């Protein structure tokens, strides 16, 4: 009997040797005369267990990990192909507590299906959202998304349905859908996991967006750091075209939607939506003044819905089950689930999809298990390079757009980076300025010049003698005020957030007395 064995082809798992493990299993099976058929999936997102190998038994999949090539003979000896016990055995994959306690709505298939297989996607509930969308009017689809309360997962948190409605109500001969797959924030990888692990989900979400707004062409703007995702997306697009899910006549309904992947070229600012449109038009990624908003005048001046990958990937289920279903999850004005990406110095890094409202502490300790180094946790950065640094004492905050904003922070794309006590926050603050200087599009002086000046001032604060510190600090505060007020986009506008939060919560690192951060 042939045993089915699942091994991720996710680039994170591959970076830890998943390909080697896959081949070693094949070779060992051949040697022992065992019949195995390998299926390469996305990752379940339990990265400390990668490469994680799953074996299909009659009624369940059992997991082993992290598997090293050198473990493979022993795994065969332990009869892992029949679920045998071994040091690396993890039991039923879907019963692993980290996974079992999640509420995976958007990530329900990632790590389970073969991302290259359209039949697999369909047999696991794929394309039901599109089916329902084709039976609704554009207004009704938009209404479902509005009712769901879905807000953009790319960073700004703007209600997706409202954006779609604007594009629907703007008449034009040509409209576009753009998926923002630039995922530039450090500490984030949810978009990548979807594109590598369940690419049809993004395609389905974009197709629904197109039908809802009257768009006929779409682009996925993919960062060049994700070559594996490019490969998966292109294969998925080809498969969808061949099966009639994309093209001139979607499922025989006469609707048209064409999709193309475009690669970025290593500019963080091209994650900002208007810079992305410039880049898609073949220009420098310079941020545009708004208005007009892209929903009215976007790509090549035409109405354009631009949404993050996770936002679009959340749509199929919303349309299938109805907006009210999705709205049941979450708290306050943060509805639904958020795929939280836990990274940095943490014992169990990975992807955790939970309804909004879960606290940072639950994520970092209950899921993450504390620091990887075992040393005390000192700081966490929430929401990417433009997000605030929080001390341990503020970890009881819920993940919720409004609650984090009230603490001077942001949800961003849902990334959390943990630092142990070896971190120096003056250095992190300086890095924030350095990153801003490096990635500034150059349009606004406070961002372009101020960021370099900010690096210098932070250096000066650290070495200044006591009497001189006050004036330098004053200068840094002024500079941050100028950047916040005088920047066109959030790169210059929010870089003060990590800088000032570092200063507020960790003044000692700047050579200041503990209570002087202010």
């Amino acid at each position, binding site marked *: 009997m042939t045993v089915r064995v699942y091994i991720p082809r996710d680039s994170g798992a591959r*970076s830890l040797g998943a390909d080697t493990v896959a081949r070693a299993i094949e070779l060992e099976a051949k040697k022992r005369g065992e019949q195995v058929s390998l299926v390469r999936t996305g990752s379940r997102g339990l990265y400390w267990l990668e490469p994680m190998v799953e074996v299909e038994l009659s009624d369940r999949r059992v997991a082993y990990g992290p598997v090293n090539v050198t473990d493979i003979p022993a795994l065969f000896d332990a009869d892992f192909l029949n679920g045998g016990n071994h040091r690396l055995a993890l039991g039923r994959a879907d019963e692993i507590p980290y996974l079992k306690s999640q509420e995976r709505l958007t990530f329900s298939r990632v790590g389970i299906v073969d991302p290259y297989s359209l039949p697999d996607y369909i047999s696991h509930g794929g394309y039901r959202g599109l089916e329902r969308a084709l039976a609704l009017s554009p207004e009704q689809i938009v209404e479902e998304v509005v009712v769901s309360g879905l807000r953009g997962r790319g960073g700004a948190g703007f209600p997706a349905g409202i954006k779609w409605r604007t594009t629907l109500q703007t008449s034009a001969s040509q409209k576009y859908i753009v998926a923002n797959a630039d995922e530039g924030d450090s*500490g984030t990888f949810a978009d990548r996991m979807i594109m590598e692990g369940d690419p049809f989900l993004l395609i389905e979400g974009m197709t629904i967006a197109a039908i809802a707004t009257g768009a006929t062409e779409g682009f996925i703007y993919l960062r060049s750091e994700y070559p594996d995702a490019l490969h998966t997306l292109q294969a998925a697009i080809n498969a969808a075209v061949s099966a009639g899910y994309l093209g001139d006549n979607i499922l025989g309904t006469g609707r048209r939607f064409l999709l193309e992947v475009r690669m970025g070229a290593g500019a963080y600012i091209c994650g900002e939506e208007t810079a992305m449109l410039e880049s898609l038009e073949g*220009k420098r990624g310079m941020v545009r003044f708004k208005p007009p908003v892209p929903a009215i005048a976007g790509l090549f001046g035409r109405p354009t819905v631009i949404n993050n990958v996770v936002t679009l990937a959340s749509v199929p289920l919303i349309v299938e089950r109805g907006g009210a279903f999705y709205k049941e999850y979450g708290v306050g004005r943060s509805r639904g689930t958020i795929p939280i990406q836990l990274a940095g110095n943490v014992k169990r890094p990975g992807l955790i999809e939970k309804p909004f409202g879960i606290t940072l502490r639950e994520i970092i300790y209950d899921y993450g298990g504390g620091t990887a180094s075992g040393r005390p946790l000192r700081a966490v950065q929430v929401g990417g390079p433009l997000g605030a640094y929080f001390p341990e004492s503020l970890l009881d905050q819920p993940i919720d757009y409004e609650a984090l904003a009230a603490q001077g922070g942001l949800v961003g794309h849902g990334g959390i980076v943990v630092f142990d006590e070896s971190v120096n926050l003056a250095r992190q603050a300086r890095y924030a300025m350095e990153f801003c200087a490096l990635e500034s599009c150059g349009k606004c002086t406070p961002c372009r010049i101020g960021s370099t000046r900010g690096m210098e001032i932070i250096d000066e604060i650290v070495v200044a003698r006591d009497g001189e510190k006050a004036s330098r600090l004053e200068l840094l505060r002024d500079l941050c005020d100028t950047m916040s007020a005088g920047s066109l986009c959030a790169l210059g506008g929010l870089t003060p957030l990590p800088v000032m939060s570092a200063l507020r919560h960790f003044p000692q690192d700047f050579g200041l007395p503990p209570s002087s951060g202010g």
Partner: protein
Amino acid sequence: MTAKFVWMTLVLGREQDIQFGLLLAASQKWTHRVPWMSTTRWDKAKVAAIAQELKDKPGALMPVLRRVQDELGWVPAECVPIVAEVLNLSRAEVHGVLSFYHDFRRDPPGRNIIKVCRAESCQAMGGVSLAEHIKRRLGCDFGHTRGDGSFTLEPVYCLGNCACSPAVVINGQLLGRVTPERFDAAISELDENLL
């Protein structure tokens, strides 16, 4: 290759290093086209052909420059007028785009390209000292190519592999949880004689 692994197994005898060595070898089949050969000679006709092929795409300049870099490993300044003419753009426009994006190399790279993540999650996992080690090991700073043309070292800001920090890319192959020892084991697989 196989003989080399056995050799590595014997000499290093360390599980993880072996896995990394194997991983790099496994990558030979997988890698996306990496410009292994650094050469200052390149074919103008090829650049013109790429531009011709892609010129009707909306916003064609980015795809054209990307393809040129994929084919040549870099984008020589002399490409600018060729591309400008085919796409009916000014040279200034083409140059402006070329110089805006970090990815586009305006000098030929070395035979091996090492990218090291310098962003926050990797910083939190020892990325800064790993970067120092790599610079020392390669005898080469970020943004530079060794004088002997063997290595180019480039900074990147997040590879989306933050759950396996710190992360490095060697000739297109992503590696996670990299330590100085694993890095050294990985580059020892490359046919370069480093001091």
